[in-house]
């Protein structure tokens, strides 16, 4: 579904991503691990086109997209849950969700499943996004990305600040979405157990490079937990 | 040196550009004209245009530059009194020469300035006289309405004293001011209406610049007709009315020393020259609808008198030119032979009162029998009787 080849990226002269390549398969969860500041967020942002890459190629659904703008990528079917929630603080919860449906035609309804998944959103439909608690905002950010039913879902630390029970729910949803087989998922996560449980494929980054990769079921065996810790 | 430099100090940007830009063009036209006729003392005039941008200290700075760097022989410029006051010390220090073409409040007399616009007694007093007369409607009550600054304040102070001397009661005078750029005259027009129910009322407007259009629009729409409450203005001429639908304003008045509608050969020629010039130079606005007005005429007179004085003095030396200016005469477009007073640096001028016509021009309904000598120190201000009627420091 998504294929990343040899990308490089810089911030103000420092080399942040070095020759990163990987693939995300349809129906599978690809987990991205690594310590703070190794460039995970940067990588995900370059997938979305929020930061341009210096070289390398990104292919989505068989078409090269590295030249495309973020909204073109979104329209092509990429959904994004950014780190730090980034909800629209002054829009209501409902409007936030409708922003998620931006590229769908006008009358598209907000999928009711979302409210089953995150009941709190239904309660707070008319409250401003910015007034929600941290965890509520995170739930909103996930719901917003799911609303248009993307083909590729990119999640940057989606469990941050969320209460355990809902983390479990989110885990279940991610699994279910992947298992439906029509979506590829890239998940960046610090919460190791959560990541391991969901991983079909995994990648470990270190200083902007991918230093280890493999299948999710082998993570324990290959000592990934230690790798991330160092 | 084969040219004589002439400084032009009019704002081409900022709030005063509306009024001043055209004066710059008038000077340029006069210079073209003079040059075409062989120049002055056999030399061509060379204009030096600067833009003081409606910024008063900048007027002083530019004057310094014109006199000090460019070494101009004379400056034509300024509109507002404050700009003139700002350049005055520089002129006096560097012994420059300024021709000031706008009606003003008086109370000033500098050896380095020639005032070619009207002093209060050449504009305001005759206008009030007219309104008090039977012909003018016999006004008994007065609204003195102005923009809040020195020219209106002074003029109204003089008028108040004058009206009192004519027996008008304090309660029959209402003095009102609005800030610069005021654009909402609803309350004021309503107040005038109310005031005018107390007796035959006339309004003397010293509203300046941009506020006139909103004022007149409000006046027109509120149905205050000139027959009922005439308004006489001292800062509204042909150019200011360009921006106004004058149909509802027919009959309101203005007092000036020149109107474009004056019928005489000099004026006809002046207007034609201006129209041709505006077309040739593609001056926006004027190329389609050329208009002349009082300050333009004053500018025109000023530069020609200066030329004559230079020729008389055979020099552009400031002191010599000043001496030669005394008593200069010139065939003014207003139809009189305008004379520079021998002593007080002001022109003798006829005063005309015009009523606004539907086409934005003025019907002259009254004029002084002959030119009036300026009284820069108004006798209606205490202490002025002792003032000498010539600039101090001037060798007489």
């Amino acid at each position, binding site marked *: 579904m998504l294929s990343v080849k040899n990308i490089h990226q810089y911030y103000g002269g420092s080399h942040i991503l070095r020759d990163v390549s990987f693939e995300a398969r349809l129906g599978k969860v690809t987990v991205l691990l690594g310590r703070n500041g190794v460039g995970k967020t940067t990588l995900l942002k370059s997938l979305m086109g929020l930061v*341009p890459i210096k070289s390398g190629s990104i292919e989505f659904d068989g078409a090269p997209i590295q030249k495309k703008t973020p909204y073109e990528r979104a329209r092509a079917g990429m959904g994004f849950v950014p780190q730090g929630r980034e909800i629209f603080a002054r829009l209501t919860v409902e409007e936030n969700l409708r922003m998620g449906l931006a590229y769908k035609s006008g009358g598209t309804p907000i999928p009711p499943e979302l409210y089953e998944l995150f009941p709190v959103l239904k309660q707070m439909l008319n409250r401003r996004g910015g007034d929600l608690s941290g965890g509520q905002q995170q739930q909103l950010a996930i719901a917003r990305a799911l609303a248009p039913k993307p083909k590729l879902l990119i999640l940057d630390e989606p469990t941050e600040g969320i209460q355990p029970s809902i983390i479990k729910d989110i885990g279940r949803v991610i699994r279910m979405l992947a298992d439906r087989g029509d979506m590829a998922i890239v998940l960046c996560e610090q919460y190791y157990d959560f990541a391991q449980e969901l991983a079909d494929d995994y990648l470990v980054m270190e200083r902007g490079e991918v230093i280890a990769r493999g299948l999710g079921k082998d993570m324990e065996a290959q000592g990934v937990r230690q790798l991330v810790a160092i | 040196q084969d040219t004589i430099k002439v400084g032009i100090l009019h704002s081409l940007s900022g709030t005063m550009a509306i009024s001043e830009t055209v004066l710059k063009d008038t000077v340029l036209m006069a210079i073209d004209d003079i040059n075409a006729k062989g120049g002055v003392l056999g030399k061509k005039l060379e204009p030096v245009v600067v*833009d003081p941008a409606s910024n008063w200290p900048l007027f002083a*700075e530019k004057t310094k*530059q014109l006199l000090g760097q460019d070494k101009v022989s004379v400056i034509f410029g300024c509109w507002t009194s404050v700009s003139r006051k700002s350049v005055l010390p520089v002129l006096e220090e560097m012994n420059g020469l300024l021709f000031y073409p706008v009606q003003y409040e008086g109370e000033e007399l500098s050896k380095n300035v020639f005032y070619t616009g009207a002093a209060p007694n050449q504009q305001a007093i005759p206008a009030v006289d007219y309104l008090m007369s039977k012909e003018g409607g016999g006004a008994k009550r007065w609204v003195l309405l102005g923009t809040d600054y020195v020219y209106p304040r002074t003029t109204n102070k003089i008028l108040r004293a004058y009206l009192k001397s004519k027996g008008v009661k304090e309660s029959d005078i209402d003095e009102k001011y609005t800030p610069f750029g005021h654009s909402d005259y609803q309350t004021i027009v309503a107040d005038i209406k109310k005031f005018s129910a107390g007796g035959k009322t006339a309004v003397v407007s010293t509203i300046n610049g941009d506020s006139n259009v909103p004022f007149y629009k409000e006046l027109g729409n509120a149905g205050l007709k000139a027959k009922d409450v005439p308004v006489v203005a001292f800062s509204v001429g042909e150019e200011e009315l360009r921006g106004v639908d004058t149909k509802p304003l027919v009959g309101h008045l203005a007092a000036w020393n020149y109107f474009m509608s004056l019928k005489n050969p000099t004026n006809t020629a002046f207007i034609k020259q201006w129209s041709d010039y505006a077309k040739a130079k593609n001056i926006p606005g004027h190329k389609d609808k050329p208009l002349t007005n009082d300050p333009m005429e004053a500018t025109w007179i000023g530069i020609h008198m200066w030329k004559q004085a230079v020729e008389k003095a055979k020099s552009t030396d400031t002191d010599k030119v000043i001496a030669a200016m005394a008593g200069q005469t010139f065939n003014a477009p207003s139809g009189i032979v305008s004379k520079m007073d021998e002593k007080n640096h002001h022109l003798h001028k006829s005063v005309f009162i015009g009523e606004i016509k539907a086409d934005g021009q003025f019907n002259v309904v009254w004029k002084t029998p002959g030119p009036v000598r300026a009284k820069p120190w108004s006798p209606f201000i205490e202490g002025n009787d002792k003032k000498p009627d010539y600039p101090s420091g001037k060798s007489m």
Partner: protein
Amino acid sequence: MSNSAAVLPSKGPLLSGKGWTVFFVALIAVCALAPVLNIMVPAGSALHMSDYAVALVGKIMCYAICALAMDLIWGYTGILSLGHGMFFALGGYMMGMYLMRQIGRDGNYKSDLPDFMVFLDWKTLPWHWTFSDSFVATLVLIVAVPGLIAFVFGFFAFRSRIKGVYFSIITQAMTFAAMLLFFRNETGFGGNNGFTDFKRILGIPIQTQEMRMTLFALTGLTLLGFFLFSKWLIGSKFGRVLQAIRDAETRVMFSGYNPLGYKLTIWVISAIMCGVAGALYVPQVGIINPGEMSAANSIEIAIWAAVGGRATLIGPIIGAFIVNGAKSWLTVAYPEYWLYFLGALFIAVTLFLPDGIVGLVRKWMARAKAPSEGRREARRSMAVEQGVEPAAVAPTPPPLAGVEPKGARA
């Protein structure tokens, strides 16, 4: 615990060696060179500094003080004041009152009262002119009046936690109101004509070259003095608290600082600097009137600071010189087109030099030091984070360029 691992930066000197050199060159130029060039060198010589040039540079130095003051409050503290024109004018009026009194009986009406008062039939000086005949009192008032008004205004505004544009707008309302007030003849400041036609200072005629050079040198000294003072202020922890307030005021509070005191202090200092600039300005340009309080004037002060480079002390000074120098030249060279040039300059500076002229110079210097091919890429990436599309950013530098990370990790 070992602390050898971290190399703590030591506090730098007030100015670097080179900095001091430049500083003294400027000092000499202002106090010695300019007077010599103006008074001693004959007018015909190419080296002669004309009176006009003296007046112009003198005026711009006053403006530069304002720009510096604006930089302290805006560049470093993040508070955009659109009311600095008022403090400038207040200082100017204080000086103007003294100069009016110095005219003595040489005015038009040969009275002890200033002309405009005679003319308005005032018989005695109004109360606020009480101290205007004393030079010392005037010096005090030049500092005290803008300072006090800034203090009162700032105290209430900062106490109510008025921030951002809300603060900018009320400062604008403040100057606007002051302008209308000063326009009124009744206020006792000469209405819209203000004060002009000054004759002497301390009994010495004002229109002599010596006096002019003295004022010029004094202005230069004040500018340099304020520059050093600002440099010291910004270099101290006080200065860093100001910047912290700009970045995250709540965090500053939770770190135990009360921003009120800090904001108020810098606000008052900034206002006083403007007042002093105004006081120096008036005798040099020869007029003070309420036009100085118009909204546009205050905005222009901010523009000088921005053109030169905010949050760099030297930038605003350079900005004041460039903008005003350009204005002076263009209004003569292209009287009908100069606004196009000036407008274009402002647009160009914002688009291409987001950190002002000083930012550009710094970037050049940084590039000379560490040429890196990744730089442009980085620039694009940052621009994208600002919400600009990649295709559109090619010619624009990044918003944060110039604040290159100094010790980027490998």
